[in-house]
C-alpha cells in the first residue's frame, strides 16, 4: 500500500503526544500480566531442569513425586508430541527434553500440584539418571572438527562437508571484486572481535495459565509477543488442532523479541490434560535467564580497505554465531546487515552458525545486526583514526542512499541515512569539547523492518465511538498509535477510539509482534479498515440523501455532499450515522487483511561520549544522542522511548551484560545481580532527534522504529571507549577488568 499522494497532509492526531491508554492500569497495578490470572481448581506447575550442560537422560523416575499427596500430574518429554516440522520439534524438545539435555537449565520434567510448596517438594522427588557428556559453550571451539557434538545431523546442505556437525548454517552475500578493491586501498585494517550472549532482560518473567480438556479443547492465558505463534507451537507440541486452542495474550511486561517463542505453555497444557484442571506456571528469574532466549554469542573477522581520503574500496566480514543448542539462522541477518550502511563496490560477508550447549537463541531487537555492525563500525572508526579522518565525513562519503545496491542484494529506495548523518553532524553534541580521558564514538545502524500477516477489524459503535480489534500484543505503545491512526483517518478525536488485542479465536491470523512491524503493518491495516468503514458510511448516507454513492465524500469526521448533483444536504457526523445504522442496513464495520510488504528499512546514527577511569577500568557514559529516521512518528513519545530504550540496552551489551559459563558449562550469573543491565544512575539522559523521511510503503509514511536503536550502541560505546582509553577494544562486554587489562597491558 503506497504512501498517500497528499504528501503535505496536515495531520490532526498523528504526531501528537496523547495519553497512553494503558498508563493508569499499569501505574495502579490493575493491569493483568501473565501471572495475574487464576481459575477455580487451578494447580501450580513447576519445572525440573538439568543441572548439566550436556547429558544423556538414562532414566527418569517420577514415582515418588506422583505418590506425594497433592500432586495431580507429572509430565516428561514423552508426554509431548514429536512434530514432524523441525522448527516445531525444536520448540517441543526445548520445552521438555527427550533423550538428551542440551544445556544447563534445559527442562526435563514438570509437576502440577495443589500448592506451590507441594510442587516444589515434588520436583525434588523426581530422580533423573544422567550420563554426562562432554560439552562446548564457545562458538570457535564448537566449530573445531573434534568438538563435542551438540546435535547430530542438523546441518543444512549449504554447509561444506568435513566441518564439525555443530555447524548448521552457512551463508554468503556480496558483490564486486574484492581483490581489486583491496588493491586500491591506502590502508587495510583486519581485526577479530568477540561478543558475549546477552538477554532481553524484560521485567516480567514468562507466565501462563493453561487448561486442556479430555475433549481436546484448550485455553491458554499467557504473556507473549504472539498469541497465534503460541497456538501453533502448542498445537504441534500437544498434537491437537489449532481451532481447538484459544490463546489470550495478557498485558506484557517487556519482550524485546524474547517472547516470540514458547517455553512453558505446552508444558502447562500437558499437565492440565493429565490433571483435568487448569495449571499455572510462572518462571523464576533464574529460569528466565537459564532457559529462555539469550541472543547469539559471536566471533567475527572484519577486513576493510580505505583510500587516504576516506573512500572504502573493499570490505569483507566473516561471522561465526552460535544460537545455542539448536540450528539457527540469525547469522543470515547479521551477514546481510553488516555493511548495509555503506555504498560499496566490492563487499562480501560470510556467515556460519555453530551449535553450543547454551539455551536456544530467541530474537532480541534486530537479531544478528548489532554484533555484526559493531565489528564493522569498529574497523571503520579505527581506519578514520589511523588516516586522521573525521568519522562522520567518512560515513557521509560512503553512505548508502537511494539507488545504492545494498551489500545484501536489493537496491535501496528512499532511505534516511544521509539525512540522519547530516543531522548528527549539525548537532551541538558532535562538536562539544571533550576533557581528558574522554572519547567520542559514533556508529551507524540499520534494520530491515518487517510487515507481515495482519488482520484488523474496526467497529463503528452506535454511540459514535470506535472499537479497533487487532491481534498483536502491545509491547511498545501500539494500541495508542493504532487508535491515533484510526482517529486520524475517520476524523474523530483520539479518545473516541479504543483498540483491543484479540484472542486467537476472535480474529484472523497475525504474525508476531516482531520486526518492528506493528505500527507499520497493523497501522496500515487499520487505515484500510477505517477507509472500508468510511466507504460504507458514505453508502448509507447516499441512501438517506437518495443520491449517488460517489457524490458523498468524507471530511473531518462527516459525510458531506460533493459534486454537481449532490444537492445541499447538511453534513452528517459519524455519530449521527452510527446512531441510525440499524435503520440503514445494520451495524457498520470495516476490516482489512493483508500480508504487508514495503516496511521500509531504517537507519540510525548514535553519538556517545565516555570517560574512562584509567585506574579501575570503569566507564562513564557522559552524553548520548540518538538520531533516527522514523518515517512518520505517530506518537513521538513512544518513538523516543524506543530510541532511548534501544540505546540503553545496547549500552548494557557494550559494557557489562554477558552470559558467563564456568568450566563445567553451567551458567554462573542467572540473576540480575551478576547479569548486569544498566541501572538508571548509570546513564545520562538519552537525547533523541527524530527524522521523518516518509516510507513510500505506508499511507502516512510510517517506518518501524523498534529495532534499529539497539544496533549502533555497541560500536558507538566501543569507539568512544577505545578513543578515550587510547586502545582499540575488540571484545564485548568491556567490563572493567577487561578494560583495565587492555589499558595497563
Amino acid at each position, binding site marked *: 500500500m503506497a504512501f498517500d499522494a497528499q504528501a503535505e497532509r496536515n495531520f490532526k492526531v498523528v504526531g501528537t503526544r496523547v495519553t497512553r491508554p494503558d498508563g493508569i492500569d499499569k501505574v495502579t497495578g490493575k493491569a493483568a500480566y501473565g501471572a495475574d490470572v487464576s481459575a477455580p481448581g487451578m494447580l501450580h506447575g513447576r519445572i525440573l531442569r538439568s543441572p548439566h550442560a550436556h547429558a544423556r537422560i538414562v532414566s527418569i523416575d517420577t514415582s515418588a513425586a506422583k505418590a506425594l499427596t497433592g500432586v495431580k500430574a507429572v509430565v516428561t518429554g514423552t508426554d509431548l508430541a514429536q512434530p514432524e516440522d523441525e522448527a516445531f520439534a525444536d520448540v517441543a524438545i526445548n520445552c521438555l527434553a527427550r533423550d538428551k539435555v542440551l544445556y544447563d537449565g534445559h527442562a526435563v520434567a514438570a509437576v502440577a500440584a495443589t500448592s506451590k510448596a507441594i510442587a516444589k517438594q515434588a520436583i525434588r522427588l523426581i530422580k533423573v539418571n544422567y550420563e554426562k557428556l562432554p560439552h562446548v559453550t564457545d562458538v570457535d571451539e564448537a566449530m573445531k572438527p573434534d568438538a563435542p557434538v551438540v546435535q547430530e545431523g542438523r546441518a543444512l546442505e549449504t554447509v561444506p562437508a568435513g566441518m564439525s556437525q555443530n555447524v548448521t548454517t552457512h551463508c554468503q552475500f556480496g558483490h564486486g571484486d574484492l581483490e581489486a578493491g583491496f588493491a586500491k586501498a591506502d590502508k587495510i585494517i583486519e581485526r577479530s572481535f568477540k561478543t558475549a550472549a546477552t538477554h532481553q532482560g524484560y521485567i516480567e518473567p514468562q507466565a501462563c495459565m493453561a487448561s486442556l480438556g479430555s475433549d481436546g479443547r484448550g485455553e491458554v492465558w499467557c504473556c507473549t509477543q504472539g498469541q497465534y505463534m503460541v497456538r501453533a507451537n502448542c498445537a504441534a507440541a500437544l498434537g491437537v488442532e489449532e481451532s481447538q486452542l484459544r490463546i489470550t495474550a495478557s498485558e506484557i511486561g517487556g519482550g524485546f523479541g524474547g517472547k516470540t517463542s514458547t517455553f512453558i505453555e505446552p508444558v502447562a497444557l500437558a499437565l492440565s490434560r493429565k490433571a483435568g484442571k487448569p495449571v499455572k506456571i510462572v518462571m523464576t528469574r533464574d529460569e528466565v535467564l537459564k532457559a529462555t532466549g539469550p541472543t547469539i554469542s559471536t566471533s567475527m573477522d572484519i577486513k576493510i580497505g580505505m583510500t587516504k581520503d576516506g573512500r572504502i574500496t573493499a570490505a569483507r566480514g566473516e561471522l561465526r554465531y552460535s544460537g545455542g543448542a539448536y540450528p539457527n539462522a540469525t547469522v543470515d541477518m547479521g551477514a546481510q546487515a553488516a555493511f548495509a550502511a555503506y555504498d560499496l563496490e566490492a563487499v562480501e560477508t560470510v556467515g556460519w552458525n555453530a551449535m553450543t550447549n547454551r539455551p536456544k537463541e530467541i530474537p532480541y531487537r534486530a537479531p544478528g545486526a548489532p554484533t555484526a555492525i559493531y565489528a564493522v563500525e569498529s574497523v571503520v572508526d579505527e581506519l578514520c583514526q589511523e588516516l586522521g579522518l573525521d568519522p562522520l565525513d567518512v560515513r557521509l562519503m560512503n553512505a548508502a542512499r537511494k539507488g545504492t545496491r545494498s551489500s545484501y542484494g536489493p537496491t535501496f529506495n528512499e532511505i534516511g541515512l544521509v539525512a540522519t548523518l547530516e543531522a548528527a553532524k549539525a548537532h551541538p553534541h558532535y562538536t562539544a569539547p571533550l576533557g581528558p580521558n574522554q572519547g567520542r564514538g559514533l556508529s551507524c545502524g540499520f534494520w530491515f523492518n518487517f510487515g507481515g500477516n495482519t488482520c484488523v477489524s474496526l467497529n463503528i459503535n452506535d454511540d459514535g465511538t470506535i472499537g479497533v480489534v487487532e491481534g498483536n500484543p502491545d509491547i511498545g505503545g501500539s494500541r495508542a498509535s493504532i487508535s491515533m491512526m484510526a482517529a486520524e483517518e475517520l476524523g474523530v478525536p483520539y479518545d473516541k477510539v479504543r483498540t483491543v488485542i484479540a484472542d486467537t479465536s476472535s480474529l484472523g491470523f497475525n504474525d508476531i509482534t516482531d520486526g518492528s512491524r506493528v505500527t507499520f503493518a497493523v497501522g496500515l491495516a487499520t487505515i484500510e479498515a477505517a477507509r472500508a468503514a468510511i466507504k460504507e458510511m458514505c453508502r448509507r448516507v447516499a441512501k438517506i440523501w437518495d443520491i449517488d454513492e460517489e457524490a458523498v465524500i468524507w471530511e473531518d469526521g462527516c459525510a458531506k455532499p460533493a459534486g454537481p448533483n449532490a444537492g445541499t444536504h447538511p453534513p452528517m457526523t459519524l455519530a449521527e450515522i452510527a446512531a441510525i445504522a440499524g435503520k440503514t442496513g445494520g451495524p457498520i464495520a470495516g476490516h482489512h487483511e493483508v500480508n504487508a510488504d514495503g516496511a521500509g528499512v531504517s537507519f540510525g546514527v548514535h553519538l556517545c561520549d565516555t570517560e574512562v577511569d584509567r585506574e*579501575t577500568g*570503569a566507564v562513564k557514559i557522559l552524553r548520548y544522542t540518538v538520531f533516527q529516521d522514523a518515517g512518520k512518528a505517530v506518537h513521538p513519545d513512544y518513538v523516543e522511548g524506543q530510541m532511548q530504550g534501544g540505546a540503553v540496552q545496547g549500552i548494557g551489551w557494550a559494557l*557489562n551484560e554477558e552470559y*558467563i559459563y564456568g568450566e563445567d558449562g553451567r551458567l*554462573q550469573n542467572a540473576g540480575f545481580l551478576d547479569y548486569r543491565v*544498566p541501572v538508571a*544512575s*548509570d546513564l545520562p539522559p538519552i537525547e533523541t532527534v527524530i527524522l521523518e523521511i516518509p516510507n513510500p510503503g505506508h499511507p502516512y509514511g510510517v517506518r518501524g522504529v523498534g529495532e534499529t536503536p539497539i544496533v549502533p550502541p555497541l560500536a558507538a560505546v566501543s569507539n568512544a571507549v577505545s578513543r578515550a582509553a587510547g586502545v582499540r577494544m575488540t571484545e564485548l562486554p568491556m567490563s572493567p*577488568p577487561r578494560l583495565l587489562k587492555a589499558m595497563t597491558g
Partner: protein
Amino acid sequence: MRYVKPQSFEAAATLLHEEAGIARILAGGTDVLVQLKAEMVEPDLMVDLKHLPGMREIVAEDGGFRVGAAVSGAEMGEHAALKAMWPGVVEGVELIGSSQVQSRATMAGNLCTGSPAGDSVPAMVTAGAVARVQGPDGVRDVPVVDIPTGPGKNSLAKGEFITSILLPARPDTASDAYLRFIPRTEMDIAVSSAAVSLELDSDGVVTAAHVAVGAVAPTVLLVQDAGVALVGSKLDDAAIAGLVAAVEAACNPITDKRGTIEFRTKTAGVLAKRAAHIAYARAGGQA
C-alpha cells in the same frame, strides 16, 4: 518453619540455643528472606528481634554512639551527629542496596551475614567498632573485626546474637571514608572495597591511621602496614605509595565472575588511596 518474637534478650538466646535445626535471626531480612526465596536455606526457626529494647535506637555513649542491631541504614543516614562523627561508616551502610533495601537493612545483619564484600564492614573495622553480644550465658563485647570468619560464617557461638554496635568517640581532627568498586553505579556487590580512618594533629600530620579492605580475602582485612605507611605523613606520594603497596600485599582474592585476582588487588589499592584522600580532607587536613 517457626517464626518467634521472644519477649527478652535472654529468652531469645535460650530459644536460639535450644533449636536443634537451622535458626536465623530476622533483622532487616534483606539477606535472609532473599536466601529463603532462592531456596538457599530453609530455616526451622526464625527469631525476630526488632522489637526488643534498644534494638531500633541510636544513643550517645561515652562520646560515641551505640547503634541498635535493628537500626536501618536509612535511620543511620538521617542521624546528623552520627554521620558527622563517622561519615565513612554511614556512607558504607548507605551504599547497601536501594532506598527500599535501605529502609530495612542493618549494619549487624550485614556483619553477621559474613560476606567478604559487605559494605558496612570495612569502615566499622577501621572505626574500631565493638559489637555487644548476647548469649545464653550473658553479654560480652567483641570487636567487629573478630566477628566474620569466612564467607557466610561468623564467630558467634550457638545462641549468640548482636544487640548493638558501639562506634567509639573520636577527636574532631579525625574522619573516615569508604569506597567500593562496582561495575555499575548502584545495586551491585563490591568487587573490591576500602575504608580508611585517620586522626590528624593540628598541623595536618596523620597521627593514627587504620585501613581495611573488602572482597579481596575470605573476610574483610584490617591492613596494619597500610595504616603505618600513612602515620607521620600528610599523605605525600611516598606515604600513599606505601599504603598502596601494603594493601596490594595484603590482598588474597579469588578470580570469579565478578573480577580477577589481578583486578581486585589493583583496585583495592586504588580505592584505599582515594579513600585516604577523602578521609584526610574530611578531617580538616590540607595537602
